[in-house]
């Protein structure tokens, strides 16, 4: 039996399960909020073109409005100024093999339940590795915080001094890039950086270092609690948008068992 045939059989038999890590594209789903004098991320909007009516009798369809960075989405290197000159840095240029690959999940949900501003640190990564082994080269690293279970105002958790949500500190993200050569980093929050990420040096270190190194980002992920710490495969292919800096996408994971 070929590898693919064997995989298809395992999926059909339930030996390999497909997990959906995607939020529904919904007009009410929060997007990142920047100071209002800056350009803003478009919210997801859906306008009916026709619905089996005088505008088109036998068919229903919609026009969509959204940003590259609305909902569960992929960040390409060209999203950040540090990645502007990275070769093949936009979603239409990224080699296909980047979109399917191994994934590890670092569970920070206990700490995030206690501390909205929980940092992923080098120490936390090393502790995780002590239990689950060294993060292999070319792996997606996802930070589980159970943030996706929040909704409404608790998700962005915006206060007068900005949003408060967990994320990696500059040392941790550099460790993952320089010492582990990961494929990319993903979170359940609205961005790969912590809510207060603007106050690190450099600001937004996850964006800055990941994309500067040609790595990818995934954010607004869901159902990370259904993934094992190691052993899953992630399928995350952004739309093929010319010069796109990112893209909403359906993120799927395959797990055994």
């Amino acid at each position, binding site marked *: 039996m070929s590898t693919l045939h064997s995989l298809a059989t395992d999926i059909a038999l339930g030996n390999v399960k497909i997990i959906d890590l995607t939020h529904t594209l919904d*007009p*009410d789903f*929060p997007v990142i909020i920047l100071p209002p004098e800056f*350009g*803003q991320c478009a919210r997801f*909007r859906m306008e009916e073109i026709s619905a089996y009516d005088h505008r088109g009798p036998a068919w229903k369809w919609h026009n969509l409005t959204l940003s590259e960075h609305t909902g569960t989405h992929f960040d390409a290197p060209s999203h950040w100024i540090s990645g502007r000159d990275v070769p093949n840095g936009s979603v239409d240029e990224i080699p296909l093999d980047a979109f399917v690959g191994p994934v590890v999940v670092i569970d920070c949900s206990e700490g995030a339940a206690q501390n909205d501003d929980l940092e992923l640190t080098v120490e936390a990564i090393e502790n995780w590795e002590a239990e689950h082994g060294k993060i292999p080269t070319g792996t997606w690293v996802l930070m589980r915080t159970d943030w996706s279970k929040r909704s*409404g105002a608790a998700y*962005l958790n*915006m206060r007068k001094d900005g949003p408060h949500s967990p994320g990696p500190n500059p040392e941790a993200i550099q460790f993952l890039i320089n010492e582990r050569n990961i494929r990319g980093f993903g979170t359940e929050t609205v961005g790969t950086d912590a809510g207060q990420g603007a106050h690190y040096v450099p600001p937004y270190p996850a964006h800055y270092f990941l994309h500067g190194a040609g790595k990818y980002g995934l954010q607004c992920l869901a159902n990370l609690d259904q993934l094992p710490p190691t052993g899953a495969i992630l399928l995350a292919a952004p739309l093929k948008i010319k010069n796109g800096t990112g893209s909403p996408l359906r993120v799927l994971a395959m797990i055994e068992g």
Partner: protein
Amino acid sequence: MTEPLTFPPKKDPQKRSATPTRPPEARSRASLALTAAAAEGRFALQVCDECQIVQYPPRDACMNCIGTDLRWNDVSPKGHLLAETTVQTSTKLFFRERAPWRMGSVKLDVGPLILCHIHGDCTRDSAVKVLNRLDKSGQAVLIAIPLERSDHMDDDPQLRALSAHPKHRRILITDAWNPNTPALARALLDAGAATVFVGEAESWRPHPNRDALASMANVEVLPLDVTDTSSVQKLAGEIGGKTDILINNARFLRPGGVLSRGDTGFARDEMEVNYLGLMRLAQAFGPGMCARTADGVNSAAAWVNILSAYALSNTPEYGCYSASNAATYSLSQSLRGEFRSSGLRVMNVFVGPTEDDWHAPLPPPKVLPQSVARSVLDGLNDGLEDVWCGDIAKDIRDRWRKNAKVLEREMTFGSDGA
């Protein structure tokens, strides 16, 4: 004295809602100047340039000297009631449904003898003031009221039919985020509104008005985002049948003209909120409101748009915002025509620069939220179509009427230098 209007009982769900009817709409072109004055609450009559006589009803020539140079001047509305009668029935459905109806003759201090509607508190031979008001057809009619105000005089059925008074009515303010929303809600409740619904976009992030609105009794904050058709349709499905007055204060504003921006991002947002937002609201709420303009004490009465006075003539410092408001103003005129047959009134409140972050670099005077609220309330009370809020809005209106091109030239001066 007028009896206070009692809060209406709940509707009998087995009875058909009353079908809207209208008083006669036909007028001569000369008479429409009276309507234009009524639209902004002025009492104006024709004055002959030649012989200075004040005449009514409006004609194409002076009834005294046949002169044709007739100017419309604001004149004293005072007079005294000579005779009055009560019409018990009429061939016109509108009056038949509302009979008995008081009519009478008033001798105005400025000369003319007029036939007009009579407020219930007026007594024969007493001094009166004549109001020039829009009726359900959107045409000017005159009604005499007593000089002295009494506590519940706005509740007189004939006067109330010529206004969009908020008392006992249920009102939707579309944008909880707008700095003027708490002041608007407060003023409406103080005027006797039964409920103030407030639409709130993006409840997933905090905004400065939330606590103020939450502390007001009879204010219901509900999800509404005018840029999201499904959200507008959903709220109309829920409360469209009991929205008597809709006040659209949703606004997107960023400074800048065409070249200072360099892209169409904010302009698109301005059109989405200011122009298409009105269209979405009108498509979702308009038909239901139009069907309920004769629905008793809390019938649908008015649609209110809060617009920038720069809708009339662009100010390049806020060039793209002005343009979106020009589009919105034009759309409101279409809505006037589309709502006209139902008797639902469209009131535009034009404001000058408002006291908020986006107008921070501008010198005073700037319009405060309380001033917007007062203008809206006065306009609803007087049944107006056009309200000018603040000195700058009034100044722009006057200059625009005097010479729109001169105003345009003044608004578009360049600057010297390299």
